[in-house]
């Protein structure tokens, strides 16, 4: 793909030959691409970083599901990635930038509520375990 895009992908997803697409006639290899945006729920951005950025210095932005974000922050800090859209929060931030609130911004209240609930569950579980442990130690002391 570094030399000739058409050799690797001769057609688009719907089967149209690349050369017949208006964009396909102008873009031949990575040199013609200003920015790659990888919207992914798997390890696709890693391949972009390892094969396209490392070898051809292509600029890459990754729109990731939240679960992948911590794994990609080192690439962002080392400028191997130009940017990250991080999960639903990233989607909400992107919507705010566009001044077009949508599903991302709408989900933030529910997301806040469930995060708070899980934090409370962690604390409650620990408090309960601590009380149980204390009563056990107390009971052991009486023996």
């Amino acid at each position, binding site marked *: 793909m570094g030399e000739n895009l058409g*050799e690797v992908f001769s057609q688009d997803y*719907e089967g149209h030959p690349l050369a017949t697409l208006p964009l396909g006639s102008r873009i031949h290899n990575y040199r013609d691409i200003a920015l790659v945006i990888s919207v992914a729920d798997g390890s696709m951005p890693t391949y972009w970083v390892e094969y396209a950025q490392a070898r051809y210095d292509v600029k890459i932005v990754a729109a990731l599901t939240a679960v992948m974000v911590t794994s990609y922050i080192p690439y962002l*800090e080392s400028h191997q990635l130009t940017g990250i859209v991080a999960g639903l929060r990233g989607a909400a931030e992107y919507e705010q930038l566009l001044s077009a609130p949508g599903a991302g911004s709408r989900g933030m209240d529910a997301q806040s509520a469930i995060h708070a609930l899980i934090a409370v569950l*962690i604390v409650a*579980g*620990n408090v309960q375990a601590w009380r149980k442990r204390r009563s056990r130690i107390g009971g052991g002391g009486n023996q």
Partner: protein
Amino acid sequence: MRDRLAIITATLAGAFMALQYFVTLPVANSAYRAILSWMQIIAAFAIVVGVFGVIRLHLERIGRKRAGWLYSVTLLAGVLVMSILGFAGGIDRGTSFQWIFDHWQAPMQSTVFSLLAFYIASAAYRGFRARSGESVILVLAAIIVMLGRVPLGEWLSPIVPNVSDWILNVPALAAKRAILIGIGLGMVATSLKVIAGLERTYLGGR
């Protein structure tokens, strides 16, 4: 003989693909592209083998009327419907193939993954115990990042998102970076062993 041929193939292909990175000759470049394309085609055939393996397994289950054979019928019906629609009607937008993907397959997949939210909530209460110094750090980092990455954190205090950002951009980054470097070195070492013919597990564990 067959295995020796396989090892020679792996060595030659591996050595060429690695060295090609440093070579700018057009002929080497086009050979590199050809081999990459061959690898893609072989991998596609491997997927076909996998699919037929699953189909054979379920046909056997139906044939012997094993427990749950009706579910195997459901599975094969799914394969058949998608295959017929995809090959006969095409995969473009607006086709039945795409409709099933959008309305059945993708929503079911995201539902399966969302099930985990319930189990995470349950595990948060039952298993996330701060018993040692290390687990205290883990629990604190989890709570701070969880609150800091949603608007609630900002509402609680501007410090929460700042600390959350610091955790992500400094200590968490350092650990992940070390893991990346470690995996990278490990993969390079394994790749060298494959090329040298020392790593042969891909031949079937012998």
